[in-house]
C-alpha cells in the first residue's frame, strides 16, 4: 500500500513536470491490445442491441429519407449553380482558403477510438495515434460529419482528445446563414450551446447550421459543428443562446481524422504593444 501511495504521489509530481508521458506511453503499449479487445466486444454487443432498435425505426426512417432525397435533389441542382459561381469568385478574389476537404486531404491521420473517459463529468476519448504518427497537442479532430474535438495530450502511440461536448471546451463559431458569431460550449450531459450570440430577430433560427469561425486560431474555419434545435432568448439579457444538435454522434465514434497541417495559434508568450499595457 505504501508503494502504491508513493506511486500516486510520484505520478502527480512527474505529471506536473512533464516527465510522466514516457512512462505512461510504455504502459499504454501493454494496455492497448486489452483496450482494443474490450472495445471490440463492447462494440459488438452494442451493435447487436442497436440493430434491434434500428429495425423498429426503419419504416419511419425510410419515409423520412424518401422525402429528404427529394429535397436534396432540388438542393443539389441549386448547389451546383452556387459552386460554379463560387469558383469564379474564388479565382477573382485569389481566395487562399478553399474548402476544408481540399485543404486537409493530404494531411490527415485516420485512427481508431480505443477508449473513453472513465467518468461522467468530462468528455475525452483515447485514439490509437500519437507522436510517432506526427500528432501534436492542439490538432483538431474531425469525422466526415464534423468537428469532434482537439488533441490534448500526446503519447508515442496514443493521444487523448478533449471532445467539444466537454464542459471546458469552447469553440469560436458562426451561424452559416446570418454569419452571426458566438462561442460553442459543451454542457453537462453532452449538450452543445452556441453562446454570446447578439440579440436580434434574425440572428439565428431553428434549423440553422453552425460552423467553426476560425476566430482565436484554435480551430480551422468552416468545420461543421451542428444544427440549431432550440433558441433561448430573454429580452433582459445581453446575449441569446442556441442549443445545437451535434452532427457527430459522440456515442458511436469509431474512426476519427486528425488534421495535421493546422497549427493552432498560441497566445502564450505574447507581450502587449508598447503603450498599450495596463496599469
Amino acid at each position, binding site marked *: 500500500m505504501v508503494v502504491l501511495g508513493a506511486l500516486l504521489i510520484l*505520478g502527480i509530481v512527474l505529471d506536473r513536470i512533464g516527465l510522466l508521458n514516457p512512462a505512461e506511453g510504455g504502459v499504454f503499449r501493454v494496455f492497448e491490445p486489452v*483496450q482494443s479487445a474490450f472495445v471490440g466486444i463492447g462494440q459488438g454487443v452494442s451493435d447487436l442491441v442497436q440493430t434491434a432498435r434500428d429495425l423498429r425505426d426503419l419504416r419511419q426512417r425510410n419515409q423520412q429519407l424518401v422525402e429528404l432525397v427529394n429535397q436534396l435533389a432540388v438542393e443539389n441542382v441549386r448547389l451546383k449553380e452556387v459552386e460554379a459561381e463560387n469558383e469564379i469568385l474564388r479565382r477573382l478574389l485569389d481566395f487562399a482558403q478553399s474548402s476544408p476537404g481540399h485543404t486537409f486531404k493530404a494531411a490527415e491521420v485516420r485512427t481508431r477510438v480505443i477508449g473513453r*473517459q*472513465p467518468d461522467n463529468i468530462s468528455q475525452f476519448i483515447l485514439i490509437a495515434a500519437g507522436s510517432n504518427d506526427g500528432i501534436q497537442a492542439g490538432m483538431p479532430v474531425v469525422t466526415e460529419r464534423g468537428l469532434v474535438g482537439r488533441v490534448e495530450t500526446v503519447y508515442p502511440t496514443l493521444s487523448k482528445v478533449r471532445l467539444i461536448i466537454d464542459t471546458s471546451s469552447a469553440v469560436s463559431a458562426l451561424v452559416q446563414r446570418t454569419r452571426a458569431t458566438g462561442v460553442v460550449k459543451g454542457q453537462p450531459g453532452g449538450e452543445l450551446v452556441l453562446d454570446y450570440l447578439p440579440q436580434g430577430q434574425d440572428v439565428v433560427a431553428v434549423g440553422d447550421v453552425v460552423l467553426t469561425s476560425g476566430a482565436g486560431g484554435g480551430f480551422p474555419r468552416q468545420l461543421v459543428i451542428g444544427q440549431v434545435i432550440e433558441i433561448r432568448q430573454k429580452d433582459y439579457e445581453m446575449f441569446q443562446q442556441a442549443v445545437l444538435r451535434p452532427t457527430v454522434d459522440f456515442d458511436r465514434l469509431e474512426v476519427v481524422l486528425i488534421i495535421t497541417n493546422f497549427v493552432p495559434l498560441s497566445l502564450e508568450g505574447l507581450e502587449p504593444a508598447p503603450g498599450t499595457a495596463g496599469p
Partner: protein
Amino acid sequence: MSPWYYLLVPALILLGIAQSTLVPFLRIAGLYPDLILILVAIWSLLRGYREGTIWALVCGLVMDMLSGLPFGAHTLALLAVSLLMQAVRRQVYRLTFGAVLLLVALATLVYYGAVMFAAWAIAGESFAGDLLGRVILPAALLNAAVAAVVFWPLRWFHQMTGEQEMGW
C-alpha cells in the same frame, strides 16, 4: 491479507481498463455507471481499511492513466470514497441492503466532488454548467441501481475469501 489478494491485482487493472472501454457502452440517458466507484465503495464496506484502500489505489491509478483529467484526480477521489466507507463501517454494527445502496449514492456525490476538487487543485481544471443536477445526481441514482446488482456477487466473493466481520 490472504495471498489470493495479490492475484486480484491484475483483475483490478482489467476492471480499470473496462471502465473506460466496456462500461461506456452501457450508457443510459447519456450517463454510464461508475463501476469502479461502486466496487470500491462496497468492498470498503465489506472488508475495511486495508483492502478498500488498495482497490482504490490500483483502480484509481489505471483510471488516471486512461483519463483526460489531471493524473491523480481519480485515485484521490476513490481514496476519499474508501475512507468514507471505512468510517461508516467503524460506526455501525449492522448494515442493511438499502443502506448500502444509499451509501453508494452518497459515495457518488463524494467521488465527483473529490474528482473536481482534485482536478482543480492539481492542474486548475474547471467545470462549468449544472453538473450537480444534470450529471452527478442522476449518476448517483444510476450507481445505486447498479450497486443493487453488483452487491450480491461481491458479498459472495467476500464470504468466500474473507472473514465475516459485520452483520448484514
